[in-house]
């Protein structure tokens, strides 16, 4: 009886400490990951003002400039210019553009600038659902990470 009771109390403290340690550990990992994975979301103008270092991952949101969208089916080379009415950025990528990507429509590209000032996109995301939420000119369109 006494052996069981003392085990119960010691165990209780152990369980409580372990649970607390677990919670703190998860909080720490979450805070670390939050800082490490946040991707800044900029308009082309902001990107140029900030002077992003080549290779630093960022997202650019803007409109695909009319007449700039080129897709080479054979090499699967994708090029277009993304702009916000003030600045424009040349974007290159590989692979077919998403079906929803259209000239004049909103798009978000994720990637990094090369040393030549061209943005190399690892991901091109067209703005979904234009009917329901037309982004005002200059605003950063909504994003989604497939």
């Amino acid at each position, binding site marked *: 009886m006494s052996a069981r009771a003392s085990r119960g109390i010691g165990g209780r403290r152990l369980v409580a400490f372990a649970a607390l340690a677990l919670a703190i550990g998860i909080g720490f990992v979450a805070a670390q*990951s939050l800082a490490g994975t946040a991707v800044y979301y900029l308009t082309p103008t902001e990107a140029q003002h900030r002077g992003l270092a080549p290779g630093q991952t960022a*997202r650019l949101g803007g409109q695909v400039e009319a007449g700039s969208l080129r897709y080479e089916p054979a090499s699967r080379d994708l090029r277009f210019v993304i702009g916000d009415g003030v600045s424009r950025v040349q974007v290159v990528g590989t692979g077919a553009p998403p*079906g929803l990507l*259209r000239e004049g429509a909103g798009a978000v590209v994720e990637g990094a600038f090369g040393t030549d000032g061209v943005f190399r996109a690892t991901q091109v995301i067209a703005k979904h659902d234009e*009917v*329901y939420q037309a982004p005002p000119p200059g605003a950063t369109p909504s994003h989604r990470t497939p």
Partner: protein
Amino acid sequence: MSWGELGGGALRAALLFAVMGVGASAFAARYRDVRGLLSARWCALIALGLVALADLAMVGALVTHDFRIAYVANNNALETPLFYSVISLWAALEGSILLWTLVLAGATAFVAWRGTVAMPRLATTALGILFVMLSFFLLLVTTPAADPFTPSAIVPENGRGPNALLQNNPLMALHPPLLYLGYVLFSVPFAYALASLILGEGGDRWLVATRRYALVSWALLGTGIVAGAWWSYAVLGWGGYWAWDPVENAAIMPWLTATAYLHSVMVEEKRRLLRTWNLALVIGTFALTILGTFLTRSGIVNSVHAFSLSAIGPLLLGYLVAILVVSCGLLLWRSRELADGGALGAPLSREAVFLFQNVLFVAATLTVLLGTLYPLIAEALSGTQLSIGAPYFDRVEVPIGLALLFLMGVGPQLPWHGASRATLERQFAAPAVTAALAAVVSVAAGARGAAPVLTYALAAFVAATVTQEVARGIRARGALHGERGGTAFLALFRRNGRRYGGYVVHLGIALIAVAIAASQSGTVEAEQTLAPGGSMAVAGRVITLEAIRDVDEPQRRRVVADVRVSGASGDTRLEPSVAFYPNATQPVGTPGIGAGLDEDVYVILAAYDQRGKAWATIRTRVIPFVSWLWVGGAVIGLGSVIAALPPPRRRPVRTPAVVEAAPAGAE
């Protein structure tokens, strides 16, 4: 009378009855008055009838294309097929809230007629709270901000049609109602919890009375989430099913806290512990369902699901704040009465595992909440826009998920109060060997990476513990009742549904874990531009583009690629396509999916020659075990049904639901 007048009138009349119901049930609860209870019951039934009438009026307006109603003009067109006209009830904000109100009215009427039989005071107070919630939603749908029957400013010749993404797949008929049912049914446990706090009942009668509601709500939410993942997979055409989008997060958060609650309830029942914690979990889960609605319906977070910026955002926020203030105030006020009647046991006891499990589920919820809201916080504090994507969630949630998978295997095998060494050996020898074998086999079969291999091992561990439990249960029934094989198996699930249904749910979760690990780590992708007749090779298959053709349909035009997939097991024909809807500025792609138990071939028409159809860019993904996700969702649904069904009674008299649930020691 037009549909609009009928619906609008019905909603206003329903509001009247809901407000009367608040008064009647408050009177009944205060003075234990039968006439009050009786009027409250009739108010609930009439309100349900009127809300149902309003919902039917909206469906009628959609089916008959009555563009005098703005909602119909914006979400329906003359050429919309009947099926999509009907389900357009939940295609946009106002209709969704209408459906939400119907479910809430249904829950209120159900509690009024079934719940108030056994425990008048607790149940009538809970009924009053449900009437308050119903009144709020009816107030919402009768204010101009979210009135679904607002007339069109100009009646158009033809409507705009439903959102293209929503009319592309029949799964849309399943996913939102399941989620709404799950969301709304959780109002019932919440109302009982609040009623118990208001009345100062220290006991756990509220919890016993609403256990089944909580389980059903949880199951609907869970299967709704899986159905949503399936929709995303079959419609959005990116080859995935979960993107940590704010709306997905809004759905998973209450599911996580509800899962924690379903387990900690057992600790309260068996050990009279964690009372305050359980109340907090119910309140938190309910608040999260409202927060989810607010986040996704107010337009404050960017999401693919976001409806237009709406004036009901502030109203929902006010509602959420009121719920939190009232609940937390009551919880503090009654904290003295809620002291636990005992102490937590040894580290190797079932209650300790439940505690860790609860900490992990709540931590998962809070970290998802943090990742979802952090962009808002950062923008408010520093003005910078940033996004928190899958890398954050993967890094934080995958370890939590693995730990939970481990506890899911361990928990049911440990006895209450603590385990001896002999018990540990008896319970864990076979499952541990199975887990090790699964790890070896998966590595031999080509699995790489710590997380996937660990997932397979833990899933096998869980499956082994469940098998062991069922086998022992059958043997025990054989010894005690002389039942054999199939009879014993069925009796086990029928008479001990809560426990064995729970094990079935655990199996479903293990299936889903395997599906996620395999599809996230083992997908092979290739993309190539092909001329008709050309082919490409992916993961041992040859993908041939046979033709590109146009298909004209009344409500849309489609460009279809005829693709032949040749593999070891023969040929499959797939038709990935791109659809153009007159109301959408952008086309909608539909993947061609060759589904199989071991892997799916997922083909997307990524781009094509718009002039001469001389080429098409085909993206192919071979995704292993992804269909186990949908199977796992169905298994969870099955397990929940087994667990929720009342066990057979010895008494021949049929008793109301709450009385059946009352004896806590029955299982």
